[in-house]
């Protein structure tokens, strides 16, 4: 998916469903795979040869390693940081599976053990706006349900 907003909203949905306190870590996990791997667009627009490839950052294995490395930056439960980050990154890779291609381009789910790309070939990247709208609707429904539940329990307690 080319837009990070879809990844952000899907990450937020998962954070709400799993009642994650530190939602920003789930979002960090959901956004990180694209931040470095999209350097190819910089190469394209600045017309410079692609000397270094950052595509390996767009793999679950590298996300797992990165999640362990960033635990040192947080004064918080390290296991939770790893879990939240990987919840976000897995949502990224699973939603990227929907992207359509002409050939065997996709997500290297099992890198470095295999370089095989996986894709379900469902939507072109520029059509991900529909995924964004759909996920926004789902997110607001979840927020509404949670708000209603919370206000009900508050009324009972009174």
């Amino acid at each position, binding site marked *: 998916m080319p837009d990070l907003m879809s990844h952000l909203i899907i990450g937020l949905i998962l954070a709400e469903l799993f009642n994650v306190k530190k939602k920003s870590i789930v*979002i960090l996990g959901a956004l990180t795979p694209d931040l470095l791997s999209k350097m190819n667009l910089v190469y394209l627009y600045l017309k410079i040869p692609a000397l270094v490839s950052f595509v390996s950052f767009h793999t679950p294995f590298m996300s797992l390693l990165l999640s362990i*490395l960033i635990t040192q930056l947080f004064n918080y439960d390290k296991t939770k940081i790893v879990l939240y980050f990987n919840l976000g990154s897995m949502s990224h890779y699973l939603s990227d599976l929907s992207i359509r291609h002409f050939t065997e381009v996709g997500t290297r789910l099992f890198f470095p053990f295999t370089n095989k790309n996986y894709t379900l070939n469902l939507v072109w990247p520029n059509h991900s706006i529909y995924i964004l709208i759909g996920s926004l609707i789902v997110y607001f429904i979840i927020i509404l349900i949670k708000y209603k539940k919370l206000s009900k329990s508050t009324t009972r307690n009174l």
Partner: protein
Amino acid sequence: MAQKSGNLNRALYFLILVLFIGTFVYDNLRTSGKAKDGFTISNYLGSPEKYDGYKMEIMGRVVNISLGHFVFNIGSKDLKISGSGIKKPVLGETALYANFRGDGTIEMIDYHNYNYNHILYIISLIAIVLFLALFFREWKLASGGFKNA
């Protein structure tokens, strides 16, 4: 005892760091090895007969459309592609599925315009700003790293 477990943690952390950098370097070496022997645009342009019939999807920008062919920019190179019916994308790039023939001509098999992709890039920038706002609402930077805000 606490010092021993601290040292073990540091050693494990160092190993993970080495594995992380090692995997990144390995993938780059693998790609450059592939670039030497396998199909790349540069290798194809150097000796097209070696790659006759190779089909690949490439992303770039349609620069100029003429009768029966068009110029396709892939960053550092402009490629002349034979084929008709292609249209320039609206605010975006093009995914081109092409057949690389042995005589040096590149034929378009199919294409898809990523129309309005640039708007999605702007939306992505807004997402980064939203993330930063959420992050610094939950965390504050202190001497020992990020702590609960």
